């Protein structure tokens, strides 16, 4: 029961964020087709410039629609993501350790005084 109550609160929070995003899109006029020309009611819109660019990237192999098998895909991409995460985490851990050590030293200096 408690879990369901919390889940409802979470879903509501997420819905508010999404609604605010929609409002932002609406306010900036960004809900349209980003360059597409089709505006007729029953007509299909022409693909936007972004979609065409993406299709070109798919054709040239820059973006894969399906991995051949998980392990032969672009591992360099995954390694780069891991590196960024590791560096950022290391910075936060180092700063946290230094701050904790300084706090401890200050506290022990206060006790001695």
């Amino acid at each position: 029961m408690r879990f369901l109550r919390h889940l409802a609160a979470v879903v509501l929070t997420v819905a508010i964020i999404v609604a605010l995003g929609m409002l932002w899109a609406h306010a900036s006029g960004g809900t349209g087709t980003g360059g597409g020309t089709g505006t007729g009611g029953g007509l299909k819109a022409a693909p936007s410039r972004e979609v065409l660019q993406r299709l070109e990237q798919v054709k040239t192999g820059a973006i894969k629609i399906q991995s051949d098998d998980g392990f032969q895909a672009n591992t360099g991409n995954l390694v780069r993501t891991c590196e960024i995460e590791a560096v950022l985490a290391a910075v936060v851990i180092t700063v946290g350790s230094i701050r904790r050590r300084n706090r401890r030293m200050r506290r022990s200096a206060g006790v001695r005084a």
Partner: protein
Amino acid sequence: MTGPPVTVSRRRIMARTRLDFWLDALLLVAYTLAYSLGFTGIAVHEWLGIGLGVVLLVHLTLHWDWVIRTTRKLLLPGGRERFIWLVNLLLLVSMTLCIASGILISEVALPELGITLRASSFWRNVHDTTATVTLILVPIHAALRWRWIVGMARRFASWRPGRSR
């Protein structure tokens, strides 16, 4: 003082802690994979993103008590919890917008379900920006709880079935 009620309660706490730990690990791995579009390909990227959204809802629900408790204490002095709260709020907003915009610009997953939405450059930009912001915030979010993660990993490494710790 180690009667049955205490053991049951400790076991329940341990089970919950274990669930938290493995769910967090799953989220971290899933996000890392989902961000690496070149590694997964677009189909896996999209389905992984949708799955990530569901697991994220569970993660938030399990920690909702912390959200309420820390939000109430925001006005009290003490900077660390406030900083963690701010990072978590930014992460919630960026990850929610990242997943929502990802669904709105879906090229494989949604069409497979028979849903086709009109492509929007706005949502594509939002998706790219929030994915980058999330990539910065995820390791910060994990690193701020580094001592808990190390403590739990050590505990699990020395855990033997049938032995209550």
